């Protein structure tokens, strides 16, 4: 029996509940079954397996992956003596993971408009469709939660006893429902005031922030952990505690374990039970019709007011001005303007590239935090260090990620015009692409970094900032030259080839290290550093000329 049928059998057990909620269970089952099948096939595709192969052990893999996460959580909560603190930590973790998964993985499913034309014209009522969508999501979240809480549950049972474990498991179910309801309600609220496009933008930026937060948390939390004495931490219920859902769960479990029937614990327990149950009732009775109404409007006429002619003209004038100054002919200009616009508009590309901005911040902090010095000591000592070198070259990360990602697009078929247009030297398109990456992404971030460096290290760092600026462009050009030459947005994302990347990566590292090392060596002599700038510019000119001369035979299609 595969996992799909197992999950459907589980649903069959709950069919009485569904029918009581006014759902057509047969239709719901059919919709959930088809969505599970499609999920499995999407997973297969993303793992690049054979097309018609079903991933029999996808469930086991997911469970294993999340269980490994769960081990760390379990060890951590086991080591905290305060039961309330450990529970708050655990439920925060579960709820954040659930909300994050919902937003990052399930936004497209929750807001999928293909159901409007496929399912909505059939005799399926709105409630059945909405609950089917929720069930589909809940089944996935169930797997996630099972994985995350498996090991912690065993340890909780061991530490606090079997009866407590039962309450603990119930609290997990409530926590998942609460996270789901909060996310849904937030979506509804946004949909009430914003157009479909705006909602998608909000989700896009949220996804970017989440990607950075994950990375940041992974890098920074272990470093910061040692600075807090979790062992001595005792939680006291305050007025704001009633606003934070994980504290409801923690409070309810503390009530059960220590038999604390005082007002704060009773209120927290009531919130823990009533919010998810009441939320479910409100969702079923009132929110479902609103959600369906809003959903049927998605993909229809956009109600977003168009930008005024003046706004559009201002933007396009600015872009034209920039592109006229930095490009030398119409091919290069066309590529520059295309890539410049795409980098600002394409949500999928933004999702791949923009987290790098956050990584710069995260790594900036990671490299700074060493030993057990506190933040104020670190900050005060900063002017006495040469840490600005790290900042100058960390910024390169955004250019490198963009250079790697910009050739790939889901709309790669739209690149037919490269073949049909009379492009003699595709290198000009490549150079337009590199210049757009540098102008649109690198320069604004570098400006902020430069301002920060001037603020901390003073005007004496100006020569380093200037030399670093040209060095960064030089490194970008060298890496573009030795890398695969692919025109922007011409390849399917699935065509990303990992083979041969190690040697190329080492070579790129060397290309970064040499100019960076030279900068470090020369930084003691500002005059020599400044006099090297013309040499840098000469090198940039020569490499750019050779890059522009790239022929069709060197382009990968």
């Amino acid at each position, binding site marked *: 029996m595969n996992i799909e049928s197992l999950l459907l059998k589980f649903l069959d057990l709950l069919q009485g509940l569904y029918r009581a909620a006014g759902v057509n269970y047969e239709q719901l089952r059919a919709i959930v079954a*088809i969505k599970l099948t499609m999920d499995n096939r999407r997973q297969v595709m993303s793992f690049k397996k054979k097309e018609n192969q079903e991933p029999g052990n996808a469930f086991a893999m997911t469970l294993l992956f999340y269980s490994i996460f769960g081990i760390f959580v379990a060890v951590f909560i086991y080591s905290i003596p305060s039961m309330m603190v450990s529970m708050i930590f655990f439920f925060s973790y579960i709820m954040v993971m659930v909300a994050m998964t919902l937003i990052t993985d399930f936004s497209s499913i929750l807001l999928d408009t293909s159901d409007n034309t496929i399912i909505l014209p059939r005799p399926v009522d709105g409630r059945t469709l909405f609950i089917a969508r929720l069930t589909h999501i809940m089944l996935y979240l169930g797997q996630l939660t099972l994985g995350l809480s498996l090991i912690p549950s065993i340890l909780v049972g061991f530490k606090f006893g079997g009866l407590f474990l039962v309450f603990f498991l119930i609290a997990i179910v409530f926590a998942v429902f609460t996270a789901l309801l909060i996310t849904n309600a937030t979506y509804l609220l946004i949909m009430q005031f914003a157009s479909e496009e705006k909602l998608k933008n909000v989700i896009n930026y949220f996804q970017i922030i989440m990607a950075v937060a994950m990375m940041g948390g992974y890098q920074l939390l272990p470093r910061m952990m040692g600075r807090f004495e979790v062992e001595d931490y005792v939680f006291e219920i305050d007025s704001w505690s009633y606003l934070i859902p994980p504290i409801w769960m923690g409070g309810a479990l503390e009530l059960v374990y220590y038999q604390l029937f005082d007002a704060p614990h009773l209120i927290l327990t009531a919130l823990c039970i009533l919010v998810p149950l009441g939320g479910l009732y409100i969702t079923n009775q009132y929110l479902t019709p609103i959600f369906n109404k809003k959903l049927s409007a998605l993909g229809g006429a956009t109600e977003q007011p168009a930008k005024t002619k003046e706004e559009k003209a201002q933007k396009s004038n600015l872009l034209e001005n920039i592109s006229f100054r930095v490009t030398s002919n119409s091919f290069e200009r066309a590529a520059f303007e295309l890539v410049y616009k795409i980098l600002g508009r394409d949500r999928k590309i933004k999702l791949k590239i923009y987290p790098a901005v956050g990584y710069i911040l995260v790594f900036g902090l990671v490299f700074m935090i060493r030993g057990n010095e506190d933040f104020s000591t670190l900050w005060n000592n900063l002017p006495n260090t040469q840490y600005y070198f790290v900042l100058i070259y960390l910024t390169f990360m955004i250019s490198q990620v963009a250079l790697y990602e910009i050739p790939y697009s889901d709309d790669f078929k739209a690149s037919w015009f490269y073949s049909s247009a009379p492009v003699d030297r595709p290198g000009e398109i490549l150079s337009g692409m590199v210049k757009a990456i540098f102008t649109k992404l690198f320069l604004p971030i570098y400006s902020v970094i430069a301002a920060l460096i001037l603020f901390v290290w003073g005007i004496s760092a100006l020569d380093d900032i200037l030399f670093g600026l040209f060095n960064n462009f030089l490194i970008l050009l060298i890496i573009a030259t030795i890398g695969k030459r692919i025109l922007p947005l011409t390849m399917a994302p699935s065509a990303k080839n990992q083979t041969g990347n190690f040697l190329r990566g080492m070579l790129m590292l060397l290309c970064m290290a040499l100019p960076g090392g030279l900068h470090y060596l020369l930084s003691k002599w500002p005059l020599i550093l400044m006099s090297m700038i013309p040499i840098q510019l000469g090198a940039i000119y020569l490499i750019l000329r050779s890059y522009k001369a790239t022929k069709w035979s060197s382009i990968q299609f």
Partner: protein
Amino acid sequence: MSITNVITTQDLSKTYTTKVLNNINLEIKSGEIIGYIGPNGAGKSTTIKILTGIIPDFDGDATVLGFDIRKDTLEIKRRIGYIPENAALYETLTPLEYLHFIGQLYSLDKNQTETKANELLRVFELGNHSESRMTTFSKGMKQKVLLIAGMIHNPSILFLDEPLSGLDANAVILVKEILTQLKQSGKTIFYSSHIMDVVEKISDRIIIINKGEMIANGTYAELNSQAQSGSLEQLFTEITGNKEHQSAAGQFISILENK
């Protein structure tokens, strides 16, 4: 109660930020083929989406098969078929899986659906592809699956929104013939299309809509006698007020050449 008018609308209107449908009054009899035509953005798809219960918010009144669209949406959906403009399918499925799923939504018998789906796919020359995933299908192949999905439950009324887009010449002829024979078996067909030739040949009545308003309603002969046109294409151009094609084409060429 015998139903003569299977579709009626009274002052049917729809507003997004602007009014896209304005007081449309329809009376469509059982067994009629209605050609519903109009320029892009005229309100054709919006009318169809309201009549099929996909768009729930609208002004005015509408009934289909005697059922009120607002109150009895599910009853209507059980009895009608809808073929949308874009080939919206779950493409990771095979046609058989997809049609089986659609059958489940109409509570059709599993075995009957499968037999029917296999036979219908064979008629549309998709028999060899019934177990292949639709991700690799051409636009025309997807459109054929969509046509079958819209009719597999044998509906009394069929709403078709640009059903011929992407089909090859043979498939177009086949669909035309299917529609004609469906009419003979008493089905009502509400047919929206840009392909005037087909509309002219199969429709009992033609309704022309422009900027959300109904501007013509009658048989081809009636409309033609009013407008003194040679073909539906010319009639359409005259009625919708877009007579300037020749001069627009001239402008287009002169702009191209000046550049």
